[in-house]
């Protein structure tokens, strides 16, 4: 196979290494829906963090866009077994939102327009691991993919990256979300194939 450059082989090998167990790669960006697609205007959009003591911290769309913006290119993994490599996002790190939030909570419930929820440990949203993403591949995030803004937590199965995000509730007790309460795994690590309740 001398016609292939070392660089080509190296890239192919690295892509295989980037595929979690039980997943297949796709060039598409499938849309999975559990309800009608909410149409949320950036004119009225807000994002609110509510602490375990009831303190609230809210940002308008303009507030969010004034925060430091980050580009991230990452692989995403859906529990329905597709993975998509090198997805390009733009948004704001959760670290920026949490800069002035005082909390002793360990868990987060994510609330979305349309009633969707998901839960995860707070530590999985911090230290550069999660964003509020508002752009994809250079364009504003479409409503079908969660626009105007969605949570992006790429190290967990993609149902944790809640579309149409409107807020986070910090809690001492872990509370199962929309899919977690009907049989999906509470944490959802694709590398440990934590798809279902008993995995």
């Amino acid at each position, binding site marked *: 196979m001398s016609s292939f450059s070392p660089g080509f082989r190296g890239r192919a090998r690295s892509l295989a290494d980037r595929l979690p167990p039980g997943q297949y790669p796709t060039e598409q960006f499938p849309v*999975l*829906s*559990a*309800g*009608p*697609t909410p*149409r949320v205007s950036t004119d009225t959009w807000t994002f609110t963090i509510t602490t375990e003591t009831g303190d609230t911290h809210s940002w308008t769309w303009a507030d969010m866009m004034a925060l430091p913006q980050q580009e991230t290119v990452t692989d995403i993994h859906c*529990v*329905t077994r597709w993975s998509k490599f090198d997805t390009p996002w733009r948004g704001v790190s959760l670290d920026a939102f949490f800069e002035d939030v005082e909390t002793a909570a360990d868990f987060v419930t994510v609330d979305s327009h*349309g*009633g969707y*929820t998901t839960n995860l440990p707070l530590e999985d949203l911090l230290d550069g691991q999660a964003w509020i993403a508002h752009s994809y591949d250079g364009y504003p995030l479409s409503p079908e993919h969660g626009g105007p803004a969605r949570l992006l937590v790429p190290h967990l199965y993609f*149902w944790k990256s809640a579309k149409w995000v409107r807020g986070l509730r910090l809690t001492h007790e872990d*509370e*199962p*979300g*929309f*899919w*977690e*309460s*009907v*049989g*999906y795994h509470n944490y959802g690590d694709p590398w440990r194939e934590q798809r*279902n*309740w*008993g995995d």
Partner: protein
Amino acid sequence: MADDTAHLDGNCLAGPLSEILSVEATTAWWRCPECARTGPLAGLHVYGPDPGLTARCPGCAHIALRLVRDGDHIWLSLGGGTGAFRFRTA
């Protein structure tokens, strides 16, 4: 609520519900607790099938039930919220 997202009709619930109910489900009468609309289960708007089936009121999109197959189990949640039943089917 305007609903321009692709959805299935409630008849697609017949198969999985037949595994846990002994009577025909699609003709079951249903009332929405949110908007008081009534009708047969077959008239619900169902989103899915993956990651699971979410059946909603065709009028206001309130959740009527959610159903997820997990190996030898079917998970069923009625009326929204995070409570659920887990049925062994095999």
